[in-house]
Structure formats: C-alpha cells, structure tokens
C-alpha cells in the first residue's frame, strides 16, 4: 500500500526563487563581458560589444512583453525610435540627452498604452498587427514632419562632447553606458519575473480565464508590462542615437530591427530572464562576422545566415539556447515518478458550524446562445456554510450557470447577488469583481498554467492574499500538501494526469481562501477511494466556514456531501431539495439517473 502513509510535513519554502549561485554566475558573466573589450582596447571589438549590449538590452525589454506577457510585438522599434528622436530633438534645443531619454520614455509609455489597451481586450493576433501598423505610422510621421524631424534626410546630433551630452571621442564611456542600460533592463526583467507581476503575466499568457478567476486584472498587468518595456526601449533608443550621431526614419522605425529584437529573445529563450542576452551574445557577433566575410561579395547574405540559424533553433531547440543550457546545468534532475500521493486525510472539526442565511442569490437567470435557451429563469440561493449540489445531464446548462455566478458570462436578464463580509449585498459583474468579493471557481475543462510548475500554479491563487513571493510560496506549499500534490511541487503542470489537474484546480482556488467556492466536476477521473478522501476534504473546507456549490456527476459524492441539491435539465430547474428526496423524483430518474441507478440504490 502506498497511499496510506502520507508525508504531511511541508518543507520550508526556498528563500529565493533565483538561487545565489545563479546570480553569482550571471554577475561573473556580465563583468567578463564588460572587462573583455576594455582589456582588449580595440575600437572595433568595443563597437561589437556595445552593439551586443544595446541589442541584448532591447531584447530583454521586448521579452517582458513578448515573453512574459506572450504578446508578440513586431513593432518595438516604435519606442526605440521615439527615444532616439526625443533625445536628438531635445539635444538640438540644448537639453541633455540624460533628460531627453526620460522625455522619450514618457512619450513611449503613453503611445504603448494607447496601442495596447484596445488590443489587450481582444484575443488573437491584433496586438502584433497593431504594432506593425503603428510602426509604419510613426515612420511616415517622421518623414512628413520635416521641420521637427528633418524628414528623410534625418537629423545629425550637434557635436558636443562629454558625459553631459552622452557623446564621446573614445568608445569606453559609451561601452559603460550601454552596459549600464543592459544591467538596468536585466534588473527590471528579473524583478518582474520573480515577483507577483511576473506570475500574473505568465498566468495570463497561459490561461486568461483561469487567471481572471484567480483575481488577476489581466488587462492591467499587461499594460504595466508593456509600459515598462516601452520605457526601457526608449532609454536605449536615446543612447543609441547619441552613439550613432545620426538618425533617420527608415533606420529608427524599422520593421527589420523590430523583428531582430524579437528574434534574439526567441533564439536565446523566450520568457527567461537572460535568454535575450544569450541570444544577442550568440547572434550579434555571428551577424557582424557574416557581414564582414560575406558583405563584399554577397550583399544581404548575412540575412540568409540568420534565417538558417533561426530554422535550426526552432527545429532543435524549441526552448532556445536557454533550454539547452539549463539542461546541461542540471536544472532537470531525473526523478522517479512519485505519482500516487493521495488527498490528505484531513482531521475534521468536531462540529460543523450551523447553516446561516443566504450568501449568494441567483435571481431569474436567463441566457440564450444563438437561439438556444441555455438557462431559463434559473433562481436559487446558497446559504452560508452550506454545500449545494448542482446536478443534471450533460448539456443541461450547469456550467453556463457557473459562468454567470463567476462573471464570465453576463445573463441576458436576471442577476447574481453576493453578500460581502460586512453583510451588505453586491452584484459583481466581472470575474475580477467576483474574485475580489471572495468567490472562487474551478473549471470543468481544467485550465492549468502549463509552463508553470505545480507550486507556481498554486502561487497564482495565493497571490490573491499575499503580495510577497515567499508568503505566497509558503501558502501554496501548504495547500499543495493538503491536496496531495506535495510530491509534484516542482513538476510542470502539463505532466499531471486528469485527476492531478483536477486537484490542481482546487488547490489554486483554495489558495485564494475564498468564502464561496464553485467546484465544477472536481471528482471526475478519481477512483472511489480517492472520492471518499475528497469528500472528507470538501467537508473540512465546509467546516472552516466556506460555502460551496458543486457540479458533480459522481453520485456517491453528491449524496454524501450536499445539504441540498438543485437539478437542472434543458436549462430549467426540475427539482430541488434534500438529496435523498431528489433521487427518488421520477423526473430526475428519467432525465439524469436512469433506471439502473434506482435498482442499485434499492
């Protein structure tokens, strides 16, 4: 027997998600990158390193949007160009680019939000298309507003040398500034990835609805990401303009460059902190060399070299260079599948709290889908501390009711009211409102954040209560062990079976500590013995004061859990009452249970 002895001890949370060793290695790598060109002292080598730093920085900034948030921007040169033009135009008016770069960043943030806000409310390729379109708009504007931008002839910077003007005769100061900007970009990217914002971004990228159900304002977090990315990109744009000493619309607002920035991150490792740096380190020298060797005979052949590298990476390294690196650095320790940990047998409180007054009311809910009346005048209420079973044939409208009870669908008519902690009634509208007021839900079709580990999945829920990463991690671990997911903490969610994923759904929502819990078929795919444990778990959750509505087909669970049962058929309530009475109702037997069930019960 494997599943009776259960290790309930929760190991202490790692203090840092980014271990010291890795940080030290990264620091050493960066210092070496800075020291090498200074030691060599060659102008051309310095130029190559400056180019590496600039592209690594741009790509790191891009990765916050393209990698973490999963929004493929193909027009990031917009922000680069704005930074460049702001810097040069202000410098011509006698203002130092050190100030100009902030002006550029401010304009970039406004532009970024204006482009993104409408797109982030949609799903699909709209953001990518919008960034390309706006890139073209800015290029044309830069061509036409001749009195400000110099039009097609471009702008020269006034030759004022010194730190004040960010322009130097020697390359070393420029090298230092480029390096500094890269470090800033990396620091911002690292900070985002290791804090709540990063978890929210990745969660939103992986499963938008599940993120919303966990209380994430999916539009807001992505706007923050795009703003940070645009500002960093503009900083680098300003500096690069000073370094180039000459800017023109075609070079500043260039689609090729935008794609290049994205490609460094793709090849290095999308969504990882140092992937873009690794990509730039690998590709910038390669393209400079290709240009040097092939340039004279075969103009444009370096583009071909690029293309080949990209194809090879996509074919053989889907996770980019970082994927290969982390495999060899021993991140993936082979493990024997410790698979069948069971749901923790939870000690129950001696007495259940009494059932209180109504805490959630579904009031005359009506919903149509293209002529189909999915729910027809559905009204019921949930009382505090109660478990309400919602049963009915497949396709009866149960999940539609859940979607209306959690803000994912708006009823055509009727409303959902929830009593808040202070006793007042509210009618929340969006998934975020429902989460904020303490309504948590699971999804019937499980919605794991596939690229995250089990622990990180649960942390997304825990962040609803804790801002701090370590607090959230600890809460997530506790919940994981309680749900029998302890041995899986560091496994990627995509490796779990259906039964495991169902438990992960419950764990994620439990980590939010909801007052009202909507469970959509969480017992499906687990065997009878685990069903009994899960029933105990639900009862202990109820005893802790949570009110539950459960959609369930496992009648064993429905019968022993529910205080009341509501039966839905073809969008209408056909029976309601105590479970033992409901299962004797001839309508319920005919529509849902079948005759054999009655025989089995008799």
């Amino acid at each position, binding site marked *: 027997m494997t599943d009776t002895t259960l290790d309930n001890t929760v190991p202490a949370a790692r203090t840092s998600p980014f271990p010291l060793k890795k940080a030290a290695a990264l620091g050493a790598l960066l210092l070496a990158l800075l020291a090498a060109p200074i030691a060599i002292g060659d102008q051309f080598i310095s130029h190559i390193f400056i180019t590496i730093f600039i592209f690594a920085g741009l790509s790191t900034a891009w990765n916050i949007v393209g990698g973490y948030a999963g929004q493929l921007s193909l027009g990031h040169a917009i922000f680069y160009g704005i930074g460049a033009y702001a810097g040069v135009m202000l410098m011509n008016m006698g203002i130092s680019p050190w100030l100009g770069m902030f002006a550029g960043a401010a304009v970039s943030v406004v532009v970024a939000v204006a482009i993104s806000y409408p797109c982030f409310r949609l799903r699909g390729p709209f953001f990518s298309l919008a960034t390309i379109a706006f890139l073209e708009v800015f290029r044309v504007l830069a061509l036409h507003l001749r009195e400000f931008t110099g039009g097609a002839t471009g702008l020269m910077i006034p030759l004022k040398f010194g730190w004040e003007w960010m322009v130097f005769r020697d390359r070393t100061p420029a090298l230092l500034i480029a390096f500094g900007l890269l470090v800033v970009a990396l620091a911002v990217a690292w900070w985002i990835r290791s804090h709540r914002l990063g978890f929210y971004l990745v969660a939103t990228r992986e499963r938008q609805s599940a993120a919303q159900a966990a209380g994430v304002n999916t539009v807001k977090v992505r706007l923050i990401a795009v703003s940070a990315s645009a500002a960093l990109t503009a900083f680098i744009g300003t500096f690069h303009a000073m370094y180039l000493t000459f800017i023109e619309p075609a070079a500043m607002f260039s689609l090729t460059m935008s794609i290049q920035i994205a490609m460094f991150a793709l090849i290095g490792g999308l969504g990882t902190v140092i992937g873009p740096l690794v990509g730039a380190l690998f590709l910038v020298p390669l393209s400079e060399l290709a240009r040097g060797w092939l340039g004279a005979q075969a103009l444009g052949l370096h583009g071909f070299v690029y293309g080949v590298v990209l194809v090879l990476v996509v074919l053989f390294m889907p996770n980019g260079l970082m994927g290969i690196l982390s495999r060899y650095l021993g991140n993936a320790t082979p493990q024997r*599948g410790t698979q069948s940990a069971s749901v923790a047998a939870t000690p129950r409180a001696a007495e259940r709290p009494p059932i209180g007054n109504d805490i959630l009311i579904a009031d005359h809910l009506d919903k149509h889908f293209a002529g189909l009346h999915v729910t027809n005048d559905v009204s019921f209420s949930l009382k505090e501390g109660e478990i309400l079973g919602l049963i009915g044939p*497949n396709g009866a409208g149960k999940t539609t009711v859940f979607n209306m009870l959690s803000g994912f669908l708006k009823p055509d008519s009727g409303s959902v009211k929830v009593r808040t902690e202070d006793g007042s009634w509210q009618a929340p509208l969006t998934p975020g409102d429902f989460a904020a007021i303490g309504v948590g839900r699971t999804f019937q079709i499980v919605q794991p954040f596939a690229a995250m580990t089990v622990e990180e999945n649960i942390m997304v829920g825990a962040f609803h209560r804790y801002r701090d990463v370590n607090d959230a991690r600890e809460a997530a671990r506790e919940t994981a062990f309680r749900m029998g997911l302890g041995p899986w903490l560091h496994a990627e969610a995509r490796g779990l079976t259906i039964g495991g994923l169902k438990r992960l759904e419950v764990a994620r929502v439990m980590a939010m500590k909801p007052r009202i819990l909507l469970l959509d078929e969480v017992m499906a*795919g687990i065997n*009878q013995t685990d069903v009994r444990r899960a029933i105990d778990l639900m009862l202990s959750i109820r005893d802790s004061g949570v009110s539950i509505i459960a959609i369930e087909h496992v*009648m064993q669970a429905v019968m022993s859990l529910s205080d009341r049962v509501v039966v839905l058929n073809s969008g209408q309530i056909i029976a309601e009452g105590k479970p033992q009475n409901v299962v004797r109702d001839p309508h319920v037997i005919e529509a849902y249970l079948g005759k054999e069930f009655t025989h089995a019960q008799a």
Partner: protein
Amino acid sequence: MLRLEGIHAGYGATTILHGISLNVQAGEVVTIVGANGAGKTTTLRTVAGLIKPTAGRITFEGRDITRLPAHEVVDLGITLIPEGRQLFADMTVHENLLMGAYRAEARAKQKDTLDQVLSLFPRVRERLSQSAGSLSGGEQQMVAIARGMMARPRLLMFDEPSLGLAPIIVQQVFDVIDTIVRTGATVLIVEQNVFHTLKAADRGYVLENGEIVLSDSSDALLTNDHVRQAYLGI
C-alpha cells in the same frame, strides 16, 4: 495478441512505468486498475506509440511494435480512444468520423465501415452534420468511440470512457462497450469506475506506482481485499 515486457516509460526526466509486463489475448476484455497517476494512461499511450518506452518490448500479434510511430500502430489495428474525448470540435460529426478512417487501408473501406459503426450508434447518425463541439458530453463520448471504431481496430483501448458523464450516460457508454465486446473485439480498458469495469472485463491488472502488483480474473479481483479497500472504497 498484445504483449508488454518490462516496459519503462515516462515524460521527459520523469519515469512513470517501472518495468511493467502484461498481455491481452484475442477476444479478451482486460482492464487496468490503479490509483490516479499510477501509470494507467501512460501504459495506453505507450502501446499507442504516443510515448516511446525507454526500455522493454511491445509486441502485437507477434510483431515488434516498440518503436513504431503512432500512425503505423493504428495501421496494425490498435486504436486508442483518449481520455477526455479529444474530438475535433470545429469539424462536423461526420468529418470527425472520417478522420478516424484517415489511414489508407481504412479509407478504402470508409463507406462500409461508416454504415457498420453508425448502426451501433443511432444517436450519432442523427447528429452527423452538427459540429462536434456543439454536442453534449455524452454524445461527444459516443462520437469519440465511433471515431475509434472507424479505423477498424482489432484492439480497442479505452481511457476513462465514463469521465464527467451523467449516471444515465455512463450506463449507455458501458452498454455500447458491451455491444462492441460482443462483436468479438479485443478491448483494453482503463476506468476509475472500477466496479462497473471489472463487471465487464474478463481479467484485470492492478497498477501501483508504475508497477503491476496484482493480476487475476475480474471475479477474483472483485473479492480481493486489497482491491476492495483501495479501489472500491468498501
């Protein structure tokens, strides 16, 4: 008919099956019983060629299929009806069924097969022109089984056919499986509904932590203390 010898398999760095051996004779209904995550689904996916074992040997009718790609396994007559149905939601039911007979050999007899399969599933016949995504869960499960039958399999593998279905539909699904069994098909089935499945099966294996710990006739397993305690909740 099907024989697994010392199969080790898993996902990436995680090994899930630790040397399992089992066999299925022609005309038999065999079930694998086990806790969540014991490796039941992994076993079926390994046989289907969706996961390559790291060690061990799989033979089907005497032929070594250990390293065959999934589509060639289908050609040999093994079909997996996957967990959670996995229909092509935007295609019609008819198109879904034709996808089941996609391989050249099956395509040649497509029309006959379709008629035979639809005679088993009158409800599916009524829904032929609807998109698969618009069906209820029970109807989708029927379509998934029908799609599996379209490949004219000699060995049918079911992964959790009753998952997420209303009790009345679960009965219908098991009725359909019974009908298929009566046509002489060989069946390997994985189900959480252990009681129902053992009733329908001839033999069963008990899988725990990626190892087979017990194998016996269904009747013997139904009265086995360990099985009753661990899987039937009695």
